[in-house]
């Protein structure tokens, strides 16, 4: 199962940079080889933010697998990100084994 993700940021703000770094780390450790990430700078591409109805930045949108989910913030709360992406369950099973 491939995760298609879209990360909305605003330029090079500290929030944006932290979100990029956190997402990279999570994807590499948790979703290695089964993710696609699209980075959208809202300041350059507000139209896409309109379509996805983004209010807050950074926002990570899980496009696939459905349903669509939004994870708001700089992704520094790793547990919440995993919960939001719904990859916590498999992760949980692995650690409990």
């Amino acid at each position: 199962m491939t995760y298609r993700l879209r990360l909305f940021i605003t330029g090079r703000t500290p929030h944006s940079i932290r979100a990029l770094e956190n997402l990279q780390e999570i994807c590499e450790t948790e979703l290695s080889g089964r993710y696609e990430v699209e980075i959208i700078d809202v300041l350059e591409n507000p139209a896409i933010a309109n379509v996805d109805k983004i209010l807050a930045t950074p926002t990570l949108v899980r496009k696939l697998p459905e349903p669509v989910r939004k994870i708001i913030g700089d992704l520094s709360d790793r547990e919440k990100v995993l919960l939001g992406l719904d990859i916590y369950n498999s992760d949980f099973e692995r650690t409990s084994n």
Partner: protein
Amino acid sequence: MSEQTAWEIARLETGIPGFDQVSNGGLPKNRTSVVAGTAGSGKTVLALQFLMSGVRNYDEGGVFVTFEESPEDLIYNVKSFGWDLDGLLRRKKIAVVDATPDPGEINVEAGSFDLTALLARIENGVREVNAKRVILDAIGALFPQFTDSSTVRRELHRIAAGLRKLGVTTLITMERLDEEGGVGRFGVEEFVADNVIILRNRLDQEKRRRTIEILKFRGCMHQKGEYTFTVDASEGISILPLSAIELKQSSSDKRVSSGVEELDRMCSGGMYRDSIILVSGATGTGKTLTVTHYVKAAIEAGERALLFGSEESREQLTRNARSWGVDFEGAEKAGLLRIVCRYPEIMGLEDHLLQMRRDIGDFKPSRIAVDSMSAFELAGSRRSFREFVIGLTSHIKHLEITGLITNTTPMLMGGESITETHISTITDTIILLRYVELHGEMRRGLAILKMRGTQHEKDIREYVIDGTGMHIREPFRGIHGILTGTPTYMFSRERDNLSDMFSAGPRPTI
């Protein structure tokens, strides 16, 4: 009105009827103002009207940010006002930023964030349509979307600052839970409290009464207190700035005929052209007849008359006039007369006032008659009735035309009514029609109570009504207290009178 001083903040005319008067010129330009009100108080309509008016009257684009209602719903809902949001969106006059939460969407917060994306989207909309006006509708709905309301408050503050940099004038709507007390929920007033407008929708003696109050405009002068407004299908919100009406109408020396020759003589030559005449009397004293004479005089002088009927239908009024030999139908065909009949109960007094002002604006009469004004008393609370009367009469005076209004007194003999007490000070002429009981017979008496700026006869004159109308005769002599309703007789031949009275021969009593 205050003079615009150099340091005073520039204004943006809204184009909302009445708003620019009560705000002394419009919203503070390039600033953010908050409109707060309870559910159904008209916040969204006011905000949208601000945008629509910008496009229509000033060719200013607008951005509309919605937090609660979906754009589709809003577009549909305001169609009843004849506002074609859809078309304006296509023609790039208005841009929409949809900030409503998706139902069923799961949001997780994982770290700190800001609302720069929202600001960026608004900025994008402003650029797209070259907007000068922005509205944020129902920001209260933004708070539940995030766990920390202090972040939202801080971010809204930043958005307000960002909008100011863009050179747009912003109107934010916000829900209140109560008509009184704090401005809004979520402590929003703490950060955008520079300019606050409050809309209220109170139940006042079983009638809805909508009011608008400018609570504060920082650094700007504005009218204080509440002003009533109406929401109707053709214009949306219209504010009726009662106390903002200025007493600066010029006055004219030109006189017009009342239609009754003898009455003109009693007034030293007729009514002043720009005066309000109140005809007050009990039922059956001939008020409608006086109105008919007055309308006839206008028609004969080739002037236009507008007659508002509130008790009788157009057909009844026409038939009555015909019985006195006045052809209303012919005058209507000739374009000299328009009869508008509306029962007072069909709508609120604010709406009546608005409609009547529109009728006057359409027909441009030089004479107006309202028969009867007192019928409107029951259509609203005392206060709204007073505002209605003052609103109408001051409008008539402002246009420098003649207004004749009738008032039905509750008692057959004498007495006064609410209409009299409310408007006697703003009327220029008061004519009383009274029943006079004389030797067991009902006669009628007419008196001019006051007439501003001219001499008038002080006698109480008898008048009779026949098939040709009203005829004023000699003054009553030897009677006191006609106006109070308890006349006493002072005959010189008291002895004769007494003997006459008992000429039939009273039975002797022991």
